[in-house]
């Protein structure tokens, strides 16, 4: 006697996997990576990251005002970011995109907003603003 069971779940298993992945992935946006650790060409020996910190928080003793391009964007665009997150969850649930692609779409948009705000001298800091998608509690 032999029996065969065929499980046709119409994509339920894939959907569960993708939704689980969306919950486990984290989108990081900011100044990091090899471009951030490179020396800035006209900042007196500072790295791009250090210059980025000076602009983000200001350096009153050096006469540089705070010019936030990370926190201010996250504050001012909080509603739009939430809307994108909702849209991403809906798209993943409808299996239009994978969880990873949905987060990449948000990351590219947020990076674009931050690059618009950053003070530009050489463009090095602007180019160092980037994003990556990491698994919660682990590396990318």
């Amino acid at each position, binding site marked *: 006697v032999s029996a065969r069971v065929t499980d046709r779940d119409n994509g339920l298993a894939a959907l569960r996997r993708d939704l689980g992945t969306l919950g486990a992935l984290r989108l990081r946006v900011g100044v990091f990576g090899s471009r951030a650790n490179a020396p800035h060409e006209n900042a007196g020996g500072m790295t791009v990251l250090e210059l980025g910190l000076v602009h983000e*928080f*200001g*350096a*009153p003793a050096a006469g540089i*005002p705070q010019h*936030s391009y990370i926190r201010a964007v996250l*504050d001012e665009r909080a509603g739009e970011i939430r809307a994108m997150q909702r849209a991403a969850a809906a798209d993943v649930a409808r299996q239009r995109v994978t969880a990873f692609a949905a987060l990449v779409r948000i990351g590219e948009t947020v990076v674009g907003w931050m690059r618009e705000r950053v003070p530009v001298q050489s463009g090095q800091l602007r180019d160092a603003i980037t994003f990556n998608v990491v698994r919660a509690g682990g590396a990318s």
Partner: protein
Amino acid sequence: VTSWQAFQDAVRAWALLATGLSLAVWENEPRPRTPEAFVVLSWVSAVRPGVDELVYDFDPDTLDPLAEMVPTVRGPRVYVLQLAVESYSQAASANGRQYLERASVRVRWPRAVATLAAENAALASLGPARGADYPADQRMVSRWLCEARINATAAETDSAGAIGRIATVAVSSDVDDVDGTELPRPPLNFEDEVMP
């Protein structure tokens, strides 16, 4: 918040009370030369989370009846303030972190709450203290930062745009009887009768 100057002054007084410091400067003000720790205040962002509303306030004292209703537009605002404490001393009794940790509880003092409330504002949250030293003049400046999220109501009154309101109505009528004669006035016809 109706006057930005008054609001900033209130925020400065609030920051001094919360940190226990004796000096607070806005980032575009002249910086003090002092061995004491001080706090530098700067705005990170200002968000308008909703739609502003138009309200008319009735002013019974105005002499012109056509200028009794004064329009005001007001709406919610969320302001994010950066508090940066700079200090030479790294002693646990005098470094920047110490002042910000104290502030985390002192912001709920009734006096501190009242200082912001006087300007139609209130503290929503105070973020964690973070070290953020920076280089200046071939040295590192010791600095600790935190962010305060302040909810406020912004309002502007347009006094020159005041308008009148319908206070009373005078009614006259001209109603005829079935035979074509006018009904008696009064009581069946009105002649400039004032309705409240």
